[in-house]
């Protein structure tokens, strides 16, 4: 960054720190510990610089380690960790619906240039995560399913691209997750979790607490006061529910 003005460096550093901090808090909400979430982010940062060529020819395909392989691995890990077949089913259904809705939006609603129809309300960069997150939350009903659908749903758009380019005989590059940590794949997965978190909190707030009816007894038992994470000096910093 040598040679750049201080204000510009501050802008880049502050924006980057906030993005990474938010990413850490959101990954923390999945099946990851604080340290594991930090390791995943570090791996994504480093992996952002590495592209793995996959297909040569007129339509070249490459996979970015930070923007595609790690998010994909994380989504698969979360899916494997999902306890029930029902959660599996929901996550995969949410992914399929996300791909269908995003492809429909792209083909039938959004204009060839952003902001050209008069119907656009948000930049496409944010439309994918918002739609992906909303659909994923509705169909998946959990932040984990939201992450899986948000990530895989946007990743799958590259598959659609490859198919369209090959069929039309247009040379091109499908650089899956090529923008690394700043790719729509990662942004989408993270925003989907954020959305699930906010919607979940609002919903619980409106209904006066988590839903009880129809829930397994084991789950309800664990909805009681959370265990004390760490007793700090003074004994005042325990979780209160």
């Amino acid at each position, binding site marked *: 960054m040598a*040679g750049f003005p201080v204000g510009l460096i501050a802008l880049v550093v502050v924006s980057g720190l906030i993005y990474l901090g938010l990413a850490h808090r959101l990954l923390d909400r999945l099946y990851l510990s604080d340290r594991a979430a930090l390791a995943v982010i570090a791996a994504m940062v480093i992996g952002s610089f590495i592209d793995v060529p996959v297909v040569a020819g007129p339509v070249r395909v490459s996979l970015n380690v930070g923007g595609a392989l790690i998010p994909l691995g994380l989504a698969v890990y979360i899916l494997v960790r999902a306890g029930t077949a029902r959660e599996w089913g929901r996550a995969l259904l949410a992914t399929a619906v996300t791909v269908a809705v995003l492809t429909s939006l792209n083909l039938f609603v959004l204009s060839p240039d952003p*902001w050209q*129809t008069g119907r656009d309300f948000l930049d496409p960069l944010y439309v994918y995560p918002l739609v992906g997150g909303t659909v994923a939350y509705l169909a998946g009903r959990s932040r984990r399913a939201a992450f899986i659908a948000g990530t895989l749903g946007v990743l799958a758009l590259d598959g659609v691209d490859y198919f369209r380019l090959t069929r039309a005989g247009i040379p091109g590059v499908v650089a899956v997750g090529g923008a690394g940590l700043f790719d729509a794949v990662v942004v989408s997965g993270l925003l989907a979790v954020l959305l699930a978190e906010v919607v979940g909190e609002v919903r619980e707030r409106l209904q006066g607490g988590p839903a009880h009816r129809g829930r397994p007894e084991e789950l309800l038992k664990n909805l009681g006061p959370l265990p004390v994470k760490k007793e700090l000096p003074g004994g005042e910093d325990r979780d209160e529910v």
Partner: protein
Amino acid sequence: MTKSKTFWLVLASLALVVGLTFWQANLEVRPAEVASGDLLYGEERTDGYFTIRDTNGRILDMTARVVYPGDEFIAEDNRHYRINRIEGDTAWTELLGVETLSGDSAQPVTAGGGARNLVAIYNTHSDESYTPTDGSDSIPAGGGIYKVGEVMAERLRSLGVQVEYDKRPHEPHDAEAYRRSRRTAVKMAQDAPAAILDIHRDGVPQASFYDARIAGEDVTRVRLVVGRQNANMGANLDFAKRLKAYLDEKYPGLVRGIFIGRGDYNQDISPRSVLVEVGTYTNGRDQAQRGGALFVEGLPPVLGIGTAASPQGPGPVGPGAPPSTRGDWRGVLWVIVALVAGGIAFLVISTGSWQGAMERLRRFTTREWGLGWPRPQRKRDDPRR
């Protein structure tokens, strides 16, 4: 809620999303909004455009870009307008003020030098072409816009500036083009260029709107576009204004204006990023090449990089860094304000009260950062404990 109710609720919500999708797609659109041709090939529309007028009806600008209330426009004469009303294909504006930047005020940026001697160029819409010379307004993955970009890159090189021109195509020309070109922009940003340019051409049908004779040459004028939905907007807008101010002095009339519209245009990736529209599809490409070449002459002095006498490679040049712009600091402020406001809103929603939000924040900072906030002492028999 029973399982079946939940199932129907989810199904109904999905049906609503899909229904809205198709309903929106079939909404009646104005002539200006009709895109001609196959989406896959992204034909630029040729049958409509917006006219931007001031309160007296004077035409300020014409653009094929759809404009929205709240969009802003800095005209050639530096008057700064905001669009407040749209009637049909006419956007009516109010005058916000007059930009005071002059060619001299661009000089401080040049004084220090020091930014990396590298400019990055790419084309999000790699099909964009110039009908009179290219034979079509759209040539997928091989548009005439590449040749314009190449001439601009060559002119920069002749001025001692290193140029990274990534010619990766981003076909098809659809709403996802910016998602694809984001990857190109990020790759180039990893080399820390002094600025990133996304080169386009406009879709307004009147060639005369961009025609000009400047420095004894028939050229097209250029328009700069800055996206309003990006964290670096303030910094990017300052950069665009400084470019315009410098070029207004050197080549009066070359810069048609600065359009500040909705969108991100991947400008969140660099605080020195700008979208440049070099003429329109009905201009000749040779004209656009000349206009583009004159335009990039503004970059070295405004960025404080490369001179013909110092054709060294990428790396810091000059004794110190150029000064920060007001937009840089405004960007920092906005990012922090957004974080604080969003964080507080979330905490209030999740805890249900201001006190709850503060309590959770206190617990968070104590645990995660080891910061102990002073806590009001409560009596031991306080029933709340």
